[in-house]
């Protein structure tokens, strides 16, 4: 796959925004991942070329941060938080339910390529609305088996974010206490 001129232009725009071009490595890698679903070798070379930095610097950054995929994932990436606060409200059971639904263990991709999923110890910031999961950057919270069924069915039929709609398609559930505030937009 050849990276489009749009990706090159987007990287250039990031470069122009910062006082120093190297600062644009993270946003530039996001552009690559949004176009190709992962940080491809070709994409990393392009980032180095446009920003005028060493290829090794780009690769060093791309491999440090857990959200950059080193190989293409399934069409959708799904993370279930199993850190302490979520675990107190049944995150292990939620992860087990998702594993049964998807038919593949954590850290793998479903046979149809729809989901790459994992149970993560990284706190995703949904502790007050546990159990929760994140699919393609969007939060899904206060999960129940019914809710999970519904979400997996809907999202599973959608194209990958980089091939279909521009993110964000669906705003996350509102955060905050007790009274859910009115939604934006």
């Amino acid at each position: 796959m050849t990276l489009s001129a749009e990706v090159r232009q987007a990287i250039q725009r990031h470069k122009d925004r910062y006082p120093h071009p190297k600062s644009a490595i993270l946003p530039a890698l996001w552009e690559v991942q949004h176009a190709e679903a992962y940080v491809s070798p070709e994409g990393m070379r392009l980032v180095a070329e446009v920003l005028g930095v060493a290829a090794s610097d780009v690769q060093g950054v791309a491999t440090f941060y857990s959200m950059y995929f080193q190989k293409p994932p399934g069409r959708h990436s799904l993370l279930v938080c199993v850190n302490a606060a979520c675990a107190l409200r049944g995150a292990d059971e939620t992860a087990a339910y998702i594993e049964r639904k998807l038919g593949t263990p954590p850290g793998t991709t479903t046979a149809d390529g729809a989901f790459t999923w994992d149970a993560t110890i990284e706190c995703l910031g949904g502790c007050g609305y546990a159990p929760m999961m994140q699919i393609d950057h969007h939060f899904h919270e206060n999960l129940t088996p019914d809710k999970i069924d519904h979400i997996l069915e809907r999202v599973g039929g959608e194209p990958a974010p980089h091939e279909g709609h521009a993110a964000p398609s669906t705003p996350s559930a509102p955060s905050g206490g007790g009274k859910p505030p009115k939604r934006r937009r």
Partner: protein
Amino acid sequence: MAEYKLLTKDFGIEGLQTLPVYERTGGYQGLRKALRDFTPEALIEEVKTSQIRGRGGAGFPTGMKWSFLPKDVFPRYLCCNADESEPGCFKDRYLIDESPHQLVEGLLIAAYALQVQHAFVYIRGEYHDQRILLEQAVEEARAAGYIGTGILGSDFGCDVIVHGGAGAYICGEETALISSLEGNRGEPRLKPPFPAVKGLYGKPTVVNNVETLCNLPHIVNNGGEWFAGIGAEKSRGTRLWCCSGHIEKPGVYEMELGRPIRELFEEHCGGMWKGRTLKAFQPGGGSMQVLLPEHIDLPLDMDAVMKAGSSLGAGAMMFMDETTCLVNVSMRLVDFYQHESCGKCAPCREGTYFESDLMHKLEAGRATAEELATLTDICDNMNGKCFCPLGDTATWFVMSAYKAFRDEFESHVGAGQCPVQARNRAASVAA
């Protein structure tokens, strides 16, 4: 009054995320007043008068932090730390979700006080929707003349860049945040030199938490003295409390500092769920030490909680009922630090590995008494000996839990299973 709404007073108003609605609620009046009535030096003094302390966890007085910037060294930089990743914390997300302009206004007020021309918001990669909201707010503010050159007709100019991270808890540590913002791996740097002297691009830099900045419009509008009249003697203002775990109503609640934790727990959180009893709670976030039911009447006051052996940290409260296994909770928190250790220094990189290995064995009831005895040793070799606070804090919860629930830890030795979970299972069968 149990609830004191300052930052969250307008939350829930339809369209507050947009500039026209934010302006109708008095938005950007703080910035106008700052530019009109204050010199940068006077503004720093006003913030000192307010006595506000940083909301990111360390609780350092904000005005004092600002005054550490060396005079006449330019350019200077301002970074808003929105890398909120502490287990149990989700207030910064809430503040951005509900009122992104409040943060932008606070950021600009700080930028003016510090005479900064480039202000950054470093937001964690997982907060994608929040980053989009902030970027929209920045563009609206730019179009309205709040960002750019000659802001509101003054000679002050500032650009705001929203910078998305990519999944690294360590980037919440201020020097790692700066490394990451410079386009490097997010590894911490040795202090001194402190960021105030040598920070982003080697220039004087201030890093402030989201909630700290969100307070600034209110401090400017109402005055530092007014703000210093809210809260406890050495903990002024309100804080947003991220409440999670075994409670009836988890969520974020704003309360005046100095009120008892019990009020937050009973009135806002609705007490324990399912009519159960409180076994333990963790204030401050995943890093902080465990507290017991006897501590529930402590005031929400940074110093009082510190005296009790823990910390209010970044404003989290995780409550646990009597069915909770403290070994299990400790194991998860230790796993988190092992996952997030950046690998730069050996005590953290190796120590969190040994900790995690031991806690998994213990949780499964497979550890021997000799192995459990090494826990203290492992933690002693980490606490105070790591390059940055991540490694130190990886020991705090587990050590405090081991001390407070020693019997529970020891009951796992050689048990072949988790005795607490076995007891829970037996109780549910009997019921």
